[in-house]
């Protein structure tokens, strides 16, 4: 077996004329947490479904745990866990019954399954609620149960497809704590998301845009490589005129609203705080306050998406 747990080689999926995944190649080492970032419809789910043998690639190939995804998908399945976007729970079964069903389907014997289910329930914090009906549970609980189901057979590799969509922020934070716990125990995690802040938690992040993998690296390396300039937070009383002024200032590569202030990226060493302030005053924004900020993955994404769109 090679040193990689996942290896993609120009993996491509077309639906008719539409190319959902376009020659995506990357490799994942055991124990990594890989974030797969991109907007809805950028090909994240399709990539995952191909890796799980649910969809046949149009061309290109991939290996998961050393097995070819087309030929050996049945060998891959017992070794990987998958949490789909829809939280595939049986609404009319209880927490315990859902777990027992999947334990049975994965071929765990009675005593092994009882032990494993208890461990997993403990981990996801649903021991007290094992008799609750899935249909009665909140989004956060359903999410944790869906994770529990994906974990019941102790997979070495876990695919999570937008696991935190539709879940409140505190549940999201708890969920990421769980993911770290699993990673510490040696599980490799491949997680897709469209939340930029979540991607910061990952060891490496792949950025998908319109079916293509634009880049894949650690969050810091991505920022260094694709954002050679500096990031700035700008506060002003009237944000919209200030945004217009920013867009007219030379040396600014990106500018946009970020919460209650403006966020801008400058080209290389084009500006320091003083020169940016002066440029804004010159364009009629007298009260602007400029402060250097940390670049975010969103900045990286916007920069890459701009590249990607320009190339097309």
């Amino acid at each position, binding site marked *: 077996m090679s040193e990689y747990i996942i290896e993609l080689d120009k993996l491509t999926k077309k639906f008719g004329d539409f190319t959902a995944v376009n020659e995506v190649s990357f490799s994942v080492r055991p124990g990594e947490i890989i974030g797969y970032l991109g907007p809805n419809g950028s090909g994240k789910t399709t990539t995952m*479904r191909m890796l*799980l*043998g*649910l*969809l*046949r690639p149009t061309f290109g190939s991939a290996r998961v745990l050393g097995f070819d995804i087309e030929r050996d998908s*049945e060998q891959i*399945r*017992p070794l*990987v866990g*998958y949490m*789909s*976007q*829809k*939280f*595939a*729970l*049986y*609404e*009319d*079964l209880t927490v315990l*019954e859902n777990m*027992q*069903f*999947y*334990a*049975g*389907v*994965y*071929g765990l*014997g009675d005593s092994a399954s009882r032990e494993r289910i208890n461990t997993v329930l403990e981990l996801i914090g649903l021991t007290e609620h094992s008799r609750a009906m899935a249909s009665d549970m909140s989004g956060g609980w359903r999410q944790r149960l869906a994770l529990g*189901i994906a974990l019941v057979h102790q997979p070495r590799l876990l695919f999570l497809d937008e696991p935190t969509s539709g879940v409140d922020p505190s549940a999201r934070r708890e969920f990421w704590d769980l993911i770290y716990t699993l990673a510490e125990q040696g599980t490799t995690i491949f997680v897709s998301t469209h939340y930029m802040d979540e991607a910061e938690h990952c060891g490496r992040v792949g950025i998908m845009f319109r079916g293509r993998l634009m880049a894949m690296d650690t969050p810091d390396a991505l920022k260094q490589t694709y954002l050679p300039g500096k990031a700035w937070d700008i506060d002003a009383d009237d944000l919209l005129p200030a945004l217009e002024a920013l867009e007219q200032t030379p040396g600014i590569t990106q500018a946009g609203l970020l919460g209650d202030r403006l966020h801008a990226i400058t080209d290389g060493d084009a500006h320091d705080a003083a020169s940016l302030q002066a440029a804004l005053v010159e364009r009629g924004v007298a009260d602007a306050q400029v402060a250097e900020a940390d670049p975010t993955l969103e900045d990286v994404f916007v920069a890459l998406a701009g590249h990607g769109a320009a190339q097309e």
Partner: protein
Amino acid sequence: MRLLALIRKEFIQIIRDPRTLALTFAMPVIQLFLLGYAATNDVRNIALAVFDQDRSPASRELLDAYRAADYFRIDFDVDSEIEIRQLIDSGAARAGMVIPPDYSEQIAAGHTARVAFVIDGSDPTLAGTALSAATLIGQAQSTDIAVERLSRQGQLAAMDPAIEVRTQVWYNPDLVSAYYMIPALIGMILQFLTTILTSTAIVRERERGTIEQLIITPIRSWELMIGKLAPYVIVAFIDTIEILIAGILIFGVPINGSLPLLLLLSGLFLVSTLGIGLLISTISNTQQEAMLTSIFTMLPSIFLSGFFFPLAAMPQFLQWISYAIPLRYFLIVVRGIVLKGVGASALLPEIIALSVFAFIVMGVAAKRFHKRLD
């Protein structure tokens, strides 16, 4: 192990849906009750309007003859032909009889008395029965009068009829429609239930997204298929027994043949209908779609299987189509066992046809039912 887990889950789900469960077990009896009474070709008590212009003992004798056979019920005694027309137009009467004023005179004179009989032909089954009954009763009455005339002339020493046709009806001597329809209902209800239940049970997993989670487990395609079908086989068998018991208790249908053979061949038929359900599930994306497709397959099954209308009466090309309908064979099997009490050897062609059908349908369904999404 994997298979047991799936079957167990399906049963929990069936039990957790009490409305569908109640429907599954109540529907056959309700349908049996409705169709057992409604699906009958036995025509009795046809409403008859009579315009008796003679009002003599002879005409009353004729009317008594019509009254005695329970085909007709003299509901209206009217005073004009126009009234007869109005009653038939409004549907209040289905037939009318006009007795001429000189009816008794003509008979007494030894001539032929002419009686008019009008029948509403809009319902052919009813009209057919009325036509033959009216003719027969009239002929019988005519013979009686002829015999009387001859005996009055002293010519009736020993007059035997030239031909006597002795009819004998086997298997269902009283020609009760229910005996014919109820065994057939077993077939129809089994097909309806199993096709709808299996097709929706699988499509439900697709609709809720659980099929994705299920496919990536190491469960085999055949385990998935059997696990999905087995619970409904059991449900269908309970329904079969239920219909048989209800048929015996409510309609007094005699089971002349072997019950084990009937159950065994019902099982063979079920493989076909479950296969159809499975096939529908592989082409449908929503439960609604699956339901509609199931109902769509039901109609040709009912009309081209000999359920209501005899196949022999259909145009040749429809008869050919009927060979592709498993219910056709099962109806012969079930009517044969229940009414005629025949054994497996008499049903061999049907058993072979059902086996071939089951094999093909299951084969195609299994081939289409693969563990992928595309």
